[in-house]
């Protein structure tokens, strides 16, 4: 029998087991009666109940959702403008600087981004009186800044691929630059902007390090609360939370997949 014929499927199966075993065990042990996370003590949904009564966790989740929505929207606006500038304006002073500032956040370690932004906020507060203390606003600014880089990359590749003759045609027919942007460019790149927004939303929701630096009292995000819990050891209500997140993601991905398939059929 051919040994090589088995090698790849076996390695691939092991790879997927490696990717999914921890996630499966998270879900399974969220229904565990016992407080010991890894010893099975019977089926129970008590940890879900406890999660719903955990006021700190719920308010942190609310903060995280607000931060993610605001910063993803802000990042999409900044990223779209940056991408448009870089692809459509041939040459201008500072183009190199803008290119650098747009790509650098992608390789910047989170600890540096977090620390440098915190120091900026502290210095600004001393010199200008704004932002007064740290909280939701500072986290939104920080997240919008690093997420804008990702949105720019996505929007840029869509703008490069798109047929520029459409914009030219509109201009030839007498549309001003603003009208061309809103009537032609924006509708064409909207799918890219939606995926950019979703990516920014996820990155913001996921971020622990930057938020820990720039957040203040009363504005703890969900990852910050989870981290302080997890540091003290495993706790089953975190498993319950993980399961809820996994279910939401699975549903969202299924819906997105179905929508994409329908769109493919249409064209």
């Amino acid at each position, binding site marked *: 029998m051919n040994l090589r014929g088995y090698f790849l499927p076996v390695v691939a199966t092991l790879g997927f087991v490696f990717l999914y075993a921890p996630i499966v065990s998270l879900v399974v*042990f969220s229904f565990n009666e016992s407080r010991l996370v890894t010893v099975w003590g019977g089926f129970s949904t008590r940890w879900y109940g406890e999660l719903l009564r955990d006021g700190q966790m719920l308010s942190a989740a609310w903060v995280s959702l607000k931060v993610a929505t605001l910063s993803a929207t802000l990042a999409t606006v900044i990223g779209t403008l940056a991408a448009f500038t870089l692809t459509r304006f041939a040459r201008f002073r500072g183009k190199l600087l803008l290119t650098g500032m747009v790509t650098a956040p992608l390789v910047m370690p989170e600890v540096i981004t977090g620390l440098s932004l915190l120091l900026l906020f502290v210095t600004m507060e001393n010199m200008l009186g704004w932002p007064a203390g740290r909280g939701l606003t500072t986290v939104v600014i920080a997240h919008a800044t690093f997420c804008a880089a990702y949105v720019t990359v996505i929007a840029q590749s869509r703008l490069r691929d798109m047929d520029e003759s459409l914009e030219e045609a509109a201009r030839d027919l007498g549309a001003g630059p603003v009208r061309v942007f809103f009537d032609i460019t924006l509708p064409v790149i909207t799918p890219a902007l939606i995926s950019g927004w979703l990516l920014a939303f996820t990155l913001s929701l996921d971020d622990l390090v930057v938020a820990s630096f720039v957040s203040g009292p009363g504005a703890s995000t969900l990852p910050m609360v989870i981290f302080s819990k997890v540091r003290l050891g495993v706790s089953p209500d975190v498993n319950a939370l993980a399961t809820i997140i996994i279910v939401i993601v699975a549903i969202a991905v299924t819906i997105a997949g179905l929508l994409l398939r329908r769109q493919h059929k249409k064209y």
Partner: protein
Amino acid sequence: MSAPDAVPSASHAPLYRRLFLIAVVALALALRFDLLTLEAQTAGTLTLILWTTALALIALEASDALGISRRWLVIALPMLWLFVFFLVPFLVLGRISIAESMIARPPYSPLWERGSDGSLEIIASLDNYRFLLSDALYRNAYLSSFRVAAISTIFALLIGYPLAYYIARAPEPRRSILLLLVILPFWTSFLLRVYAWIGFLRRDGVINNILTWAGVIDEPLVMMQTDLAVYIGIVYTYLPFMILPLYANLVKLDGALLEAAGDLGASPMVTFLTITLPLSLPGIVAGSMLVFIPAIGEYVIPALLGGPDTLMIGRVLWDEFFASRDWPVASAVAIVMLVLVVLPIMWLQSVQNREVPK
């Protein structure tokens, strides 16, 4: 842009726009001087929105009045935002790295001080950098960050390559599903995926339970709080970043080349080493960069899975800031990291990008 931008004269600027501008500025000033009482967070966010709007409107007025093309406004917003919130922070970082730590709010010395005779005295020293050089802890942390990131990248490549190859060779409906399965974990929380491994690697964790039950071991293995746990955590978290560029590269591989090699008598091993591997080199480089770059500054994984002796520079910076509250030394650590790690990576990437069009 080929078409000349329309530049309306100042008289065309609608009156309502100016009224709106005045209203925005008035509201912002009212907030600034506490004439309006709002919840602190709402006030902060509102201030940001108001001032951004006001600045944009003022810029619009100014460009109309001076007859400057409006395209500068489009350029100005992302430019200004990134300048203030991305570039300026590094200047602040550099400035605080030469300050002295002191018990104050904020906990560092001011840049200058008025002497008793009114003379201006600048407080700046390279003591923090000297301290980093003299203490072996920091040197070891930089070195071991490089080591951990490099070893994790190699493991990710060894696991990711066969997976990417398998997916690229799979027939169509299955290929898309497998690809989706690789991306899916990325959309769930990163923190919770690292947390899942605590349950696996603990003394009474899943792996030890299974092995003891199967009779493979008598004593539980020590896996948590070791370097091994950190490698596993990094490989697990960043494996999709390795697989996706490799897949994108391997899926374009021309099957005819492999057939030709086989027809000419090359064994599959030789074919792989002389054709597949060299052709997939760009994918290997891209994937390795995507794993290595976030791994080297990683904080969460060594903090949760590593032991007290797992030194990584991101963790050292974090502890310097949050535990020792020594902001100037933390800034100096960040500046050195910027010079030793980030600048070389950016340089490498720009070299790579320049090679692509050829």
